[in-house]
């Protein structure tokens, strides 16, 4: 089965409010699907529908070709998940919390707890009560619960929350390893495009409950806007000179010339030569590339 996670017009409404609207997506085996959106965009609701925790108003979700239904134990066997902020039983230690989930996941391997603690650098906190853990370590414990049974499908809702940069790096490498070396299919939500684009193979952008774009990560660079920025002693004259040669240039809010013509972005020398020959040599000329956050905000309509 190549298609591991699939949704068909998945919709959830609360009264007149539509939390998720007709989302159709599919995630193939071994793929890391980044599900990107602002807070309240509908990421968690979608994830909860994928896990059978919320019933869709219409549409369906399928895991391994089987329609998701509430309390499906087969889904529970193959899937590891972390939804929103992870909480654990506060009076129990890290290892006791994990032992509960080892048992509830019907794992025979008694070393599973030790292994997952080692994988997530939790061994030194094994005997610490969950209520005494830092936010980052609580997050690790949540991830450990999701990973303890070595699931073939991982559904993670903002797993980097609360982690320090080193922790984020570790989790990113762990997820990449699981997907590329163990064939684990990962569905991961985030609100940070820059972070998710580092390891997701495909990205879906959700806004106001609507899946507005799906991109293969390598295409992201192409989609990010590029501009040729030029500065001269007199940008108004330079603009006229360029326009006389049929080159459209705008003036940005820093009073610099801005050219968006793709051919000129690839050959900025053309602009430089023209200005030098007109006795207005550029004091600055460079290609500016839109960063991923700007691209994301522009895509969802927050930023022009």
């Amino acid at each position, binding site marked *: 089965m190549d298609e591991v996670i699939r949704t068909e017009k998945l919709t959830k409404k609360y009264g007149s409010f539509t939390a998720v609207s007709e989302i159709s997506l599919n995630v193939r085996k071994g793929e890391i699907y980044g599900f990107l959106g602002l807070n309240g965009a509908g990421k968690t609701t979608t994830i909860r529908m994928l896990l*059978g925790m919320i*019933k869709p108003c219409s549409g369906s979700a399928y895991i391994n070709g089987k329609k998701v239904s509430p309390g499906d134990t087969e889904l*529970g066997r193959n899937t590891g998940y972390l*939804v929103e*902020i992870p*909480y654990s*039983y506060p*009076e129990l230690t890290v290892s006791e919390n994990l032992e509960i*989930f080892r*048992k509830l996941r019907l794992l025979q391997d008694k070393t599973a707890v030790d292994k997952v603690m080692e994988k997530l650098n939790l061994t030194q906190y094994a005997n610490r009560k969950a209520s005494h853990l830092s936010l980052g370590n609580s997050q690790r414990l949540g991830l450990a619960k999701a990973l303890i049974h070595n699931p073939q499908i991982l559904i993670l809702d903002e797993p980097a929350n609360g982690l320090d940069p080193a922790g984020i790096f570790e989790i990113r490498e762990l997820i990449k390893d699981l997907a590329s070396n163990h064939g684990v299919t990962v569905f991961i939500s985030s609100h940070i495009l820059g972070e998710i684009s580092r390891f997701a193979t495909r990205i879906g952008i959700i806004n106001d409950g609507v899946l507005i774009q799906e991109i293969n990560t390598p295409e992201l660079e192409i989609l990010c806007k590029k501009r040729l920025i030029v500065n001269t002693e007199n940008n108004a004259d330079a603009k006229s000179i360029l326009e006389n040669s049929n080159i459209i240039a705008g003036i940005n809010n820093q009073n610099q010339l801005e050219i968006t013509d793709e051919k000129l972005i690839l050959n900025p020398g053309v602009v430089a030569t023209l200005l030098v020959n007109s006795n207005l040599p550029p004091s600055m000329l460079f290609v500016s590339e839109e960063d991923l956050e700007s691209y994301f905000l522009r895509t969802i309509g927050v930023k022009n």
Partner: protein
Amino acid sequence: MRKLNVAIWAETRKIRKSKIFIITFIVFTFIPLMMGLMMYLFQHPELAEKLGIIGTKAQMFGDNDWVGYLSLVNQANASIGLIGFGFVTAWIFGSEHAGHTMKDILALPVSRNIILAAKFIVSFAWCMLLSLVLLFVSTTIGLLIGIDGWSDTLFSDFVVRFIVSALLTLLLASPVAYIAGLSRGYFAAIGFVVFTMILAQFSGVLGFGPFFPWAIPGLYAVASDAEGMVLFTSSYIVLILTFVSFYLLTLRWWNNADHH
């Protein structure tokens, strides 16, 4: 069966380590201790007068013998049991919501139905243990302070009534579990327990106690022949139907509600 055993183990582990587990046992030990103290003071009115604690004319324990004492223990078991068992059930079912751990037990190889059954089994075991503590401590205190009128028959009759009364109270757990789920926490469930206890008092006054589920265990414990306090076969059926219907409602809620 393995899945149920695993779920029971998990539930037991959760409660065994919780502070509330110890607190309930302290409360259920403290209450018979206080009853024993009162009984002792009734037996020694001169001491009570000297201490100025309670009126010496009170006849709380009838003739201050085992009959009166055990009758009060039975009443305590029914009324404290109603609150205590309700509190335990509210905690077992509500704490998963209050602690935001509910989502972790909804998509596992062990089904929600089994986890729910395990929660009921563990709450029953916890409540019965509390009742046994009440029984043991109150009997021991009674023996220590030397109450008059002990008889083996009296005691065995008391134990049977005590245990049945506790079992009848346990049947009121499912409405509490349902409210805990519906309200996603334990506060509303505890409020519901207090509310039903007040209603149980009114139902007795108004005469429909034998058919009001929350009054039935109390009426059984009191075992009075007075009008409006006699239980019928239908009373027990009402109680069983209450348990079964709310158990099914809880099951439906766990399986069909949106779990945010």
